[in-house]
């Protein structure tokens, strides 16, 4: 089964975080900022040059690059 990752969503689409790929500093920062198992994430927009992206998670707005979003596996 091919799982979707956060960077593949389009603006206004949303998903629920299943888990993060890998272990490291980036992952820990994402977790602290609320991008962790079970969190609902909604893509708001991409920056003018296509990257980074802005998402809505746990009640606030977060900017991250597509390369970071690619670490976030979504459910379903």
């Amino acid at each position, binding site marked *: 089964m091919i799982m979707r990752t956060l960077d593949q969503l389009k603006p206004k689409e949303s998903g629920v975080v299943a*888990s*993060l790929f890998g*272990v*490291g*500093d*980036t*992952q*820990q*920062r*994402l*977790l*602290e*900022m*609320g991008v*962790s*198992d*079970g*969190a609902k994430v909604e893509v*708001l*927009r991409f*920056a*003018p*040059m*296509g*990257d*980074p992206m*802005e998402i*809505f998670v*746990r*009640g*606030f*707005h*977060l*900017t*991250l*690059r597509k*390369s*970071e979003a690619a670490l976030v596996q979504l459910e379903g």
Partner: protein
Amino acid sequence: MATTLALVGNPNVGKTAVFNALTGLSQTTGNYAGVTVSRTYGTLHLGEIKVKLADLPGSYSLAARSPDEVIVVDVLLDQQTDEAPITGIIVVMDASNLERNLYFLSQLIELKKPFIVALNMMDIADRRGIKINCEALSKALGAPVVPVRAHKQQGFSTLCKAILALYQGDLKVSSSVGCTFPESQIQAVAGLAALLKSCEDKLGRTVPLPEVGRILIDAGGYAEKRIVRRLGPDFVKTLAEYREAAVENGASLPAQEAKVRYGWVKEILAASVTQPDPRKHSRSERIDNVLTHKLYGTVFFIGIMMIVFQAIYSWSGPVMDLVDGTVGVLGAWVGAMLPEGMLQSMVVDGIVAGVGSVLVFLPQILLLSLFVALLEDCGYMARAAFLMDKLLGWCGLSGQSFIPMLSSFACAIPGVMATRTIYDRRDRFTTILVAPLMSCSARLPVYIIMIGAFIPQTKILGTPFTLPAVVLFIMYGLGIAVAVPVAWVLKKTVFRGEKPPLILEMPSYKVPQVQTVIKKVYREGKDFLGRAGTLIFAVTIVVWALAYFPRSASIDEIYAVQRAEARAAGLSQAALDQRLTALDNLEAGDYLRHSVLGRTGQWIEPVFRPMGWDWRIATATIASFPAREIIVATLGTLFNMGADVNVESEGLIATLRGATWPDGRPLFNIPVALSIMVFFALCAQCGATLITIKRETGRWRWPALAFAYMTVLAYTGSTITYQVASLLIPGV
């Protein structure tokens, strides 16, 4: 014994506004021992009782990745030996963003210190339809929860009552509140704590339990590094074993932590908060639909930057003229009061002309700091990072570098210090090394003088912008344009490695708080005046002395003879006056050429010839290596000494316009003005910045590198500018 209460919270929750409202103007700032995180203390007056408050840096988590982040943990756990113990914590939280704020609170609770919650931004939560039951929240947290609106100073009487109770030790630590971690993790922490306890001799201190937790969870984090440094690299292996044992079912330890904590947060929220479903789109979001829009957002960004430069250039004009006029009048007045001679020359040519010509730029520096403070305070800076990340990515940096870079436009020192928010060391050092290339406010005087004197006031066809404003914009752009390849080279060579992540909160837009903005502008102005009053003052006197001495008796004799001849020639009164004035000027010029400064300057002049400079410009530039704004003072001193000191100062611009080579050709023209500006744009003429870089990086090699590469760039760039401009601009 003196005790302190600590104010903590996530970034962007209005912590500073709460701190300001509580302590008013009774604030002191300084640095924590060993690191450069600034500490701010203030006193809260509760009737007779004075409560000391410490404003800690905003953070999202107690997981420290740098020595600066560990400060929050150290202060809260009383590991900073020279600080008074923290007996209670005031946690400032954003009511509209409770979930992530509570994550941090879950870590703070484990410090086992009494705390209260100041729930800020209730109005925003209200507007978004988030209903918070403060009583239920207080019960769930086992601590007082006080709703406040820091910007409107509402809710503070209740908050003060809670603070008093906290200060007097009336609040107890509830043992039942907090996250429940898996048994495996609890065991691992206990085991590790016991192990560290047995190494206390080597560590030189007892490691508190919450810190043991951080050592266990944060692989590669600062808490771990600090222990490994004492216990040796073998300890890493031991740690790995503990970590493996701590994980319950295959996930990573940080993931396990996040799961447990956000699970706890969910329970708290369920008991006290109702969220609207579907969520309401906030005002910030609607603003962002425009301001971070692909087209409008970019146009707005460029527009804002242009407006800032146009404003600095033209709005501050009248105030500057006023300061300039006052300085001129003062100089003439003081000159008339003092007898002719050395003292008069020192005061009028040295001090008044020197320091005065620097003071003129205070209005512009205040205006620029005002813009930076406003953009920071309203939340636009994070949007700028969002817009610029890709662009900065091309030179290997991230959008996070944008904020330090932009701050560097006011001054590289806060810019370099602002790099502390950059998590990646290589990114941070690269940013530090290119930050001084941004055109800081101290460069502005040079641009203003050169542009004002030599760039014609023409309008650019079809736009509201004038040529001087465009040249100013280009000068600011030059720093950025050069920083890109420099950063790219640094990231490919000295700081090679993987690209660090960009994970950045976009705070809600808010109306900037007057007090915060004023304080920032005030601090900039005070620093500038402080420099003008000390370093610039001292350099001015030294430059004056070098330009005044030695007073050769033979020159004096030659001119005495010539004056006598002129008087004896039987000229009309008008002709005689003219002749005597001419002789005064020639004499002053001769003295200057024969002075220590004049001789040295003439000796090194050939080095600066390719840039179109004469020895006076060269000398003024060299004298301004300690602080670049000195150039204006030294130009004022050098070019004034060749003129009649008794005439009221007609302003530096007019003096420079009239300056000539020995053969009578005008010294300054557009290519020379441009080459001077380019030199100043690229050169690291700031002792304070270099010292700050040393302090931030811990080694002298980094300021040395910054100084070396910038001087080479400045010399090369300035030479190319002069040569090319001389070819392109006809008639010079």
